[in-house]
């Protein structure tokens, strides 16, 4: 049932997965999908431009399913960077999901390992941020698994469709249109909300500056070197200014390490989401939380 559309009602015979919560998750994801679509279009187009086959472009979205790292990998392979640099850069970009995994883990602790393995596949900035907001809302009682899957499948489906559309629409666009410039624009839209205090400003300035200076660096390692230098700068400034934003969050469920990173990535994409989030649940739709397993 995981492969079914979350938007249309499934047969009523499906046990133990409350469809109302599945739908609620999918519905809450809709505003965010508006941000995912252009990103996916760019990822599809950029892959083709870098010499990927259409199947590889779409296959990457299925196998990796993490936009920022996909775009970076595409660009690095397109410029014939060493494979280790391409892989390492993608891994560094996706390391932030460690925080999401740790932060959401307490809510999933009672699930079977098999269930966790499935849920992990659709763990993204968006599914993490939206689900956690719902879990932590004292006025909501959602089936955790169903709601999360609703968000995750909606995000997954739109990402795959958008990538495929990017592949289809991108073919035949003349290169002088500079459509590949859309990729840094997407990253710019992700960067701005991630810069929120002095340490993160330092991380961005140093990261961007070093990457610019290292543009001609051997092995196309500029992105990797810049990213790591930026992280070091952010940590150093945090230490120097005594701003303890990341370290003292505590380990309470939903209050853990992901919450900063989540804000940094998704606040922009989400801005329209919060109000709808509160109303998306039908009244009287109470249901026990989904940790029956």
């Amino acid at each position, binding site marked *: 049932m995981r492969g079914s559309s979350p938007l249309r009602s499934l047969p009523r015979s499906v046990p133990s997965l409350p469809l109302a919560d599945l739908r609620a998750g999918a519905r809450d994801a809709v505003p965010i999908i508006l*941000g995912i679509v*252009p990103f996916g279009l760019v990822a599809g187009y950029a892959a083709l431009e*870098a010499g990927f086959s259409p199947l*590889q472009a779409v*296959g990457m979205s299925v196998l*990796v399913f993490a936009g*920022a790292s996909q775009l970076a*990998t595409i660009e690095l*392979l*397109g*410029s*014939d960077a060493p*494979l280790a640099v391409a*892989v390492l850069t*993608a*891994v560094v970009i*996706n390391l*932030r*999901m*460690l*925080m999401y*995994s*740790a932060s959401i*883990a307490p809510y*999933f*602790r009672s699930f079977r390992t098999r269930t966790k393995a499935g*849920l992990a*596949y659709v763990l993204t900035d968006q599914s993490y941020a939206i689900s956690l907001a719902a879990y932590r809302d004292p006025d909501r009682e959602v089936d955790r698994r169903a709601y999360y899957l609703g968000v995750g499948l909606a995000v997954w489906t739109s990402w795959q469709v958008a990538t495929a559309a990017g592949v289809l629409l991108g073919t035949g666009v003349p290169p*002088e249109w500079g459509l590949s*410039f*859309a990729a*840094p624009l997407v990253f*710019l*839209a*992700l*960067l*701005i*909300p991630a810069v929120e205090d002095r340490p993160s400003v330092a991380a*961005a300035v140093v*990261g*961007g500056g*070093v*990457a610019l200076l290292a543009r001609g660096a051997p092995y196309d390692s500029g*992105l990797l070197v*810049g*990213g790591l*230098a930026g*992280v070091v*700068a*952010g940590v150093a400034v945090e230490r120097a200014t005594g701003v303890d*934003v*990341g*370290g003292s*969050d505590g380990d309470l469920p939903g209050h*853990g*390490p992901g919450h900063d*990173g989540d804000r*940094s990535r998704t606040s*922009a994409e989400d*801005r329209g989401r919060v109000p709808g989030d509160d109303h998306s649940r039908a009244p009287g739709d109470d249901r026990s939380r989904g940790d029956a397993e």
Partner: protein
Amino acid sequence: MTTSYSPGTVWAVVLVVGIATYGIRLSFLYLFGRVESVPPRVRTALRYVPPAVFAALVVPRVVTVEPTLAATLFDERLVAGVLAGVVAWRTGDIALTVVVGMGALWLLRFVVLA
């Protein structure tokens, strides 16, 4: 730029990145109970991955260092990037950011500087 890697190599990279990414996603979901949480130091560092990496992705693609300051500042990519940055800052809308940035690039490339 088109890759000179073979299709098989591209697939291999996609697969390796996919497996690594899945491992990151599953990590604490799987380990929960065995490892309680991310150590504070690691957490602090991870917090700065998004601003650092996104800036490292953006800046070299928007800024082109030219021989003169004027040529550097009035480069079409930089002007379009700054405009898009303002839109991102004010609206937080990815689609609008891309539309304004591309629109500005095309305006500069095909109309103003043509």
